[in-house]
């Protein structure tokens, strides 16, 4: 017998034992790769999309540089459009394969941002919506956050290498841009610190209130 037919949706007809083994193995491997890789793809979209969105907004922060407080506008220094587009194409492949029309519609809403933030902003918004809808349908939150922290950890490791190797030795650092972006993210997150200190100090009021509220909710 010769020739194998491939039906949409993934089922197939094996014509020989050897062909079954090969195609079955490849299909199995590609499916498990997709299972493992998809949350990581969403994590990459989220991280890169967030960075590009911040770049599009250009928020101001106040870092201490050489003991002086400066006013700096957030700037990535590079354009992430190409990697975001590649990730979006991969995501579209998933959406088409799984026939997720609602996800496609939701993601297209990100294009509404274009008149206000331009191509960078709208692509970032589309990427973040794609990641959110992918998570909604896929529901692999732990793997997603593992990917997020792995990416951020790698980013921090590069910044650390700048500060502990290049800076004390007075060498010209190829990682200075990474360190600068990392500093920007720190000082942007620092806006939340005065808010976080309040629950830290007033937890003795908040905790009984939360327990009372949650207890009421359960009843």
């Amino acid at each position: 017998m010769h020739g194998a037919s491939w039906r949409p949706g993934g089922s197939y007809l094996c014509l020989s034992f050897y062909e079954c083994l090969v195609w079955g193995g490849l299909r199995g491997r590609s499916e498990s790769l997709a299972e493992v890789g998809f949350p990581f793809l969403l994590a990459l979209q989220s991280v890169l999309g967030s960075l590009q969105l911040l770049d599009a907004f250009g928020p101001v922060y106040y870092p201490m540089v050489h003991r002086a407080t400066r006013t700096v506008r957030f700037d990535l220094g590079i354009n992430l459009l190409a990697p975001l587009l590649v990730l979006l194409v991969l995501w579209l492949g998933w959406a088409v394969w799984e026939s997720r029309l609602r996800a496609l519609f939701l993601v297209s809403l990100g294009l509404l941002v274009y008149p206000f933030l331009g191509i960078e902003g709208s692509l970032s918004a589309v990427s973040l919506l794609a990641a959110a809808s992918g998570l909604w349908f896929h529901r692999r939150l732990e793997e997603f956050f593992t990917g997020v922290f792995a990416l951020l950890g790698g980013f921090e490791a590069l910044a650390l290498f700048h500060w502990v190797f290049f800076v004390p030795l007075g060498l010209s650092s190829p990682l200075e841009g990474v360190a600068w972006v990392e500093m920007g993210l720190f000082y942007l997150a620092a806006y939340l610190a005065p808010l976080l200190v309040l629950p830290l100090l007033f937890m003795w009021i908040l905790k009984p209130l939360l327990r009372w509220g949650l207890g009421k909710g359960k009843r």
Partner: protein
Amino acid sequence: MTIKLSKPGALLIFSISLGIISALYPYSPAINPEGKGVGVDIHSYVDYVHSAEIVEKDISQAFRVSDGSRPVIFMLIYGFQGVTGSDAFTAVKFLPIILNPLMIAASFFLALQAFGDEWVAAWTAFFTACGYQVTVGMYSYFLTNMLALSLAFLSLGFLFRSLRRDCNTSLSLASILGVLLVFTHPWMSNQYGATTILTIIISYNRTRKKKGSYENTKRTLLYIASLGLSDLAKTLLLHGSGAISASSTVISNISSLPEFWLDSIFSFRLRFGGTLSVFILVGLAVLGVYLSGFGEFSEIYFTIFLVLTSLLFPIGDKVIKSRLLYNVPIGLFAAIGMSSLSRWKFNDNFKKFFILFVVLNLTVYLFRSLANLV
């Protein structure tokens, strides 16, 4: 003979090493080619040392400098000069080589005695090493405050140990270290002493209701009495700045409530170069405080500490706000949060990458802050 190092032990050693490196890093030739002093108060300390004529080996001058509020730090500087044979500026410049690791080790000891958990203690050491107590301490050169934190942590650690083990030796050590605290930083001894008094009252009420033994209450009363008597001796006999005069400086820095938000933003965003705003550390501390109980004496103590701090925080000006926060054992609360998170049922890869991210983020914060002190 092989020595096995546990993972918490390795984290402790790493944290202490970071403390020592933190004292030297801002003086690396590429960062600070002129070897300038990095802290705001460094020259004040050098001036105090010169004015006290400690160089002429008159150690009693330590009780006259700075209104006699902090003799212990000047004796430490004097001792450091004696051991290293250095001048006043060099001694003050490199004193953090002792103070940073001391504070980190003391925080480890406190957490171990308070919770009996090696991982909580090791994380406390790490979060102290990479937290704002080192960075703000180096920025402002809060040498006295850092020494006071070390003494407070050690003193409390021995107190908790004596209560758990009925050990008089630990109680004696707690009292001696508490007395040293009074002679180091009266503001901090007020903050920690007031907390101890309120904790005794609550502990006594609980014991009365349960009809239990008052042994712990008696020990803690002895402890607070030793602090009170030493403060009286400092004020009356040595004419030093004690608890009452320290409290008056706090009251004179009361701000109005409408200025709360502006003062907060200034304290976090601008004061100390924004190094107080460690989002991840404070976030973990919030989780730690939420998960803390109110059963053990140590848990009651730390809750009361936050209650008292929270009562003064809204009305203190930007200086008081930042100093109150500086004295909070933030590393301990963050360690409770971190230890709890690592015990929750997440998959191993998630935990590993989360922990790695937190460790790297805070280590970058430490080195970046230190590199920008000059």
